[in-house]
């Protein structure tokens, strides 16, 4: 076999095995999208009930809590970014980090200090590489998150928010400063083709829900109006109840964002792996064609050598 042909054959083999891997990853990601969507649906009842309960308590407008009304002049702002643990998901993590950087730039422009919290190995290494301080990072569960995985994260955020920028949080041996506001950057799952990295305000809850209601326009309030007119008994009284409800509300929001991000991550990975598989198919057909050409050239050359040899021999014979 000629050298050229051997090189092509080797290339084809290597691309074929790469394609096997990307194809398998594509299929796994596709099945994980469906699973993640099912988990998003399963988590919805809790979030809805909790939102309803919170709305009921908030009928009393005089309630005060750092997580609800915020502080007068917020100094330190937390930004929690949800990224993936593994790469090979196209621009998934990069888009979330870009959104986080834009948010951080805006907040710093307002004179606030940004405190970064990260979920996912990609985000952690991004900030570490740029030597930006991280107040908390949690990794190892971005594709299939469970609530137990983020308990540590939600606890730290809850304590930090309760402490506000005046106070400090001591957990184990580490002491971190508190924060006044909390933003969340995650990737919204619109459908399996479109995922958008968005930044949302989580705390203080009041201004966050107000701005969300404004963004949604007048579509939503009508349905909730009838619900809110029910007068509830509260046990314990609203002041204490709100301090139990708010952390749950925030951690439920973080958890549903995490589930949505997991679905987005799988969708992004499926797309990236699909285009990689398509590319591999194209490469294989190109190389096959080139290999065939090389093989044919080799045969042609051999024939012309034989013919040339035979001619030379017969010419030599006729001379005698």
């Amino acid at each position, binding site marked *: 076999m000629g050298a050229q042909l051997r090189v092509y054959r080797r290339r084809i083999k290597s691309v074929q095995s790469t394609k096997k891997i990307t194809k398998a990853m594509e299929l796994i990601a596709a099945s994980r999208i469906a699973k993640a969507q099912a988990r998003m649906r399963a988590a919805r009842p809790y979030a809805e009930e*909790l939102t309803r309960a919170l709305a009921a308590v908030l009928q009393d407008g005089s309630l005060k809590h750092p997580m609800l009304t915020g502080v007068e002049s917020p100094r330190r702002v937390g930004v929690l970014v949800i990224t993936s643990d593994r790469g090979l998901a196209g621009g998934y993590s990069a888009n979330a980090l870009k959104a986080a950087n834009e948010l951080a730039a805006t907040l710093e422009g307002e004179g606030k200090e940004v405190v970064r919290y990260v979920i996912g190995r990609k985000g952690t290494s991004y900030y570490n590489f740029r030597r930006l301080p991280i107040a908390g990072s949690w990794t190892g569960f971005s594709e299939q998150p469970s609530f137990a995985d983020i308990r540590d994260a939600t606890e730290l955020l809850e304590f930090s928010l309760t402490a506000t920028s005046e106070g400090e949080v001591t957990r184990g041996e580490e002491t971190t400063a508190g924060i006044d506001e909390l933003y969340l950057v995650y990737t919204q799952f619109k459908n399996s083709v479109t995922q958008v990295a968005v930044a949302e305000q989580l705390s203080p809850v009041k201004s966050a829900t107000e701005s969300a209601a404004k963004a949604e326009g007048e579509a939503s309030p009508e349905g909730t109006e009838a619900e809110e007119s029910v007068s509830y008994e509260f046990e314990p009284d609203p002041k204490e109840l709100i301090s*139990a409800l708010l952390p749950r509300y925030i951690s439920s929001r973080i958890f549903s964002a995490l589930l949505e991000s997991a679905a987005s991550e799988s969708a992004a990975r499926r797309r990236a792996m699909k285009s990689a598989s398509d590319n591999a198919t194209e490469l294989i057909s190109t190389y096959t064609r080139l290999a065939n050409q090389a093989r044919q050239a080799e045969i042609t050359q051999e024939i012309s050598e034989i013919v040339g040899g035979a001619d030379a021999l017969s010419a030599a014979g006729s001379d005698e």
Partner: protein
Amino acid sequence: MATMHVELVSVEKALWSGEATAVFARTPEGELGILPGHAPLLGALAPGWVVRIDRVDESSVKVAVHGGILSVRKDGVSVLGEIAEFGDEIDVARARAALEAASGDSPEDLAARNRALSRLRAAGETV
């Protein structure tokens, strides 16, 4: 006998829903029984205790609810928990070990102790 619709919901999924004759829970103010037709109520569940649901067609069930909220509306009762476990699914030996391990005064230990207590109570152990 009058019944009401009860839903038991954890952060990750809805665990159980169906008809029940009564729900017993404990808020920081004290033990509380909900019968059909109860006035709308919103309560935080006291950590370390359990919720008992008297189901209509099945036996009554005790649930260890951690970080729980109880919401009673005209159309039914919802028990929300960050984590909720049925009494018969609980590993008693593990909960006992967790209870003994968490003897300190730090917030983490306190939370762990409450979790272990509610698990043991749900499993029907005396603590």
